[in-house]
């Protein structure tokens, strides 16, 4: 059976997302290792002085480009592909999607100018009253609004498909991608409110001051679901693509996979206070409630773990895999896309456990803002998500361009190097955090660092060096593939795993949108409403801006 043909124009459009994403990763990843090297005592920042003024400016570049730009562009491209290919239908209003994309591009450029000229060294959390140049806030707004517009393009495409296919179940990859898009649109209302009602008018001189506690609360309304916006596309790939790639497996439970995505939609947003456990302006009772909901959102991840592993096992056993765990060896490890995603999943598992520690209201007192936190999110977003995206690009780029993947062996080496480098880097960051090392500090220069941290600081540098090597190989493979003269004979097969169950038996209530959306909004109002109402009622715009970098 011939697979659905995505038009050349749409392939180009999806590919341009990948291009921006990978360019951002290339620049942002130059600075990651520089932070790690500084920890180990090899400080390159003084040599970069004419270009990059400080460790903190480098950290801002790294955070904004890797955590915000690389992820958002890759995700919007991947989700667009999933909607088109899943629904077997072109975009309804391609112009809408294009407008959204270009708004995002203009936004990135607008924000990049103040960042690169040291006018916005505020890190990717941009907590006021650190005050960046207005262009930074305008740029971020354009990126967020652009991603909304692209999302509307996906929603209208779905509505058109629904009209044409009134009684069909939404194909899983499109279904899950649409939920991810919706989650993003709901949760970004927080940061949009923060920027539009406070930071932007303030940076333009229209208002004198801001309320930093309220700004943090808006920020974390978006900040935690943001990690699910990063993670869910990787989950989509693990659920629906990886089993097929790793051994022709089928998706074990279509029903529970869909249910998991709905739970993510409902529970991702109303738990932002777990980033604010030690904020003075949020009442402890609400912090406690958010901690309980944070444990709740762990549940769909456990569901995912089961379905993904069962789907992989289904394929491996068909291919002769035996034993309780020995079947893992039968997975298609020689395919770099598979190796990257499996290794990403393994480290993500440990990241999830660390996340439970952070979520624990009490244990967090020891961990808050220590090196444990970047140690944690380098397992989750920088491996679970990023290494999975790298793995996805190993089939997606050849599919989009018709070029053969350059040196698959090197791509496999890249995945393993990322895995090993991240174990060394992240483990030492976790330990440093437990010993009391703060995050976001050039520890080589800090006056209070005891000698017992030194061996761990050197391991941070070694891990960073291996990651630098791996990142370089990734960029080389991408570049060489894009320029490859060797083309594929027939279009690359999109590796979508079939469902083991008959999809038409999936309950209809899992394909209805309104009740889940109302539930999501209601829960947000219940667990955010009272605190936000109180903070807004007592708003004090008493903090003028500071530029202390």
């Amino acid at each position, binding site marked *: 059976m011939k697979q659905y043909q995505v038009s050349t124009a749409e392939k180009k459009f999806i590919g341009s997302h990948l291009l921006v994403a990978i360019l951002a990763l290339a620049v942002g990843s130059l600075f990651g290792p520089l932070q790690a090297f500084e920890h180990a005592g090899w400080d390159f920042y003084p040599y970069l002085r004419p270009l990059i003024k400080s460790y903190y400016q480098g950290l801002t570049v790294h955070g904004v480009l890797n955590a915000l730009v690389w992820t958002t562009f890759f995700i919007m491209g991947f989700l667009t592909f999933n909607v088109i290919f899943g629904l077997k239908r072109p975009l309804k209003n391609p112009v809408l999607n294009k407008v959204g994309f270009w708004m995002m591009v203009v936004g990135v450029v607008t924000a990049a100018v103040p960042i690169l000229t040291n006018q916005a060294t505020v890190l990717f959390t941009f907590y006021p009253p650190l005050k960046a140049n207005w262009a930074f806030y305008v740029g971020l707004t354009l990126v967020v609004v652009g991603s909304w517009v692209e999302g509307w393009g996906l929603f209208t495409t779905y509505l058109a498909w629904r009209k044409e296919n009134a009684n069909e179940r939404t194909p899983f990859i499109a279904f899950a991608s649409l939920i991810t898009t919706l989650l993003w649109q709901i949760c970004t209302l927080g940061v949009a409110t923060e920027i539009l009602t406070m930071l932007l008018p303030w940076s333009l001189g229209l208002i004198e001051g801001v309320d930093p506690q309220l700004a943090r609360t808006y920020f974390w309304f978006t900040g935690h679901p943001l990690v699910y916006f990063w993670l869910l596309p990787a989950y989509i790939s693990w659920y629906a693509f990886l089993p097929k790639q790793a051994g022709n497996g089928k998706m074990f439970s279509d029903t529970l996979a869909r249910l998991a995505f709905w739970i993510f939609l409902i529970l991702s947003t109303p738990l932002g206070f777990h980033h604010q456990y030690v904020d003075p302006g949020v009442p402890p009772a609400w912090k406690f409630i958010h901690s309980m909901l944070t444990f709740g959102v762990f549940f769909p991840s*456990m569901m995912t773990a089961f379905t993904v592993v069962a789907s992989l096992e289904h394929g491996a056993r068909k291919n002769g895999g035996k034993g309780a765990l020995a079947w893992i060896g039968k997975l298609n490890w020689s395919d770099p896309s598979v190796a990257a995603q499996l290794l990403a999943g393994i480290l993500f598992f440990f990241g999830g456990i660390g996340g439970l520690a952070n979520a624990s209201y009490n244990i967090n007192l020891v961990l808050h803002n220590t090196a444990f936190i970047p140690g944690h999110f380098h397992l989750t977003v920088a491996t679970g998500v990023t290494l999975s995206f790298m793995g996805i690009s190993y089939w997606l780029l050849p599919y989009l361009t018709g070029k053969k993947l350059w040196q698959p062996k090197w791509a496999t080496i890249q995945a393993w190097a990322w895995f090993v480098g991240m174990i060394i880097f992240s483990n030492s960051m976790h330990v440093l955090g437990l010993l009391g090392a703060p995050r976001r500090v050039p520890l080589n220069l800090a006056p209070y660092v005891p000698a017992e941290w030194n061996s761990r600081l050197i391991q941070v540098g070694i891990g960073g060096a291996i990651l630098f090597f791996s990142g370089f190989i990734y960029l080389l493979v991408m570049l060489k593939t894009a320029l490859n003269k060797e083309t594929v004979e027939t279009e690359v097969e999109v590796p979508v795993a079939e469902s083991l169950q008959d999809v038409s038996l999936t309950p209809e209530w899992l394909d209805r949108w309104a009740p889940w959306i109302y539930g999501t909004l209601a829960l947000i109002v219940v667990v955010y409403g009272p605190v936000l109402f109180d903070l807004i009622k007592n708003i004090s715009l008493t903090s003028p801006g500071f530029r202390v970098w």
Partner: protein
Amino acid sequence: MSTQKMHIDVYERNWLIFSAILLVLFATAVSVAAFGMGIQVPAPEQRVDPRTVATDPSSPWSNPGLREIAPGKYDAYILAHAIPNWEYLPKELTVPAGSVVTFYVTSSDVQHGFKIQNTNANFMVIPGQVSKLTIHFDKPGTYNYICTEYCGSGHGVMYGAITVTP
């Protein structure tokens, strides 16, 4: 419709039950710690004006430092600031072992953190808000308090120390 029933594999059901029990256990542990053992996180204490908090003579942070309010019990008013040179005022405190110190920390400029090494004190310092936490100092020694939130180019050198004398 009978075809609309949800199919759940038996292994999968057991896994989900196991997951649910695990999460209930975590939630119970956190609840016991919060309510049974009195682990404190900061609660709304007081709003201040960051523009005048360091200078207004009626503000305790215009004269930061230690006040003994009863034998062995202290209030410590600490001001965090990035301007002019990223420090806490006072930079050093001394209390005898066995003291109970309640910290009241605020900022006159940007956000800071306040983490006393080897204790459970670790909280945000946010302009306009006062962070309050009580800590028992039983073991003699030096406890650094360090800034844990990015506050500009001097963030990495911002710290102070509490000396607990025998």
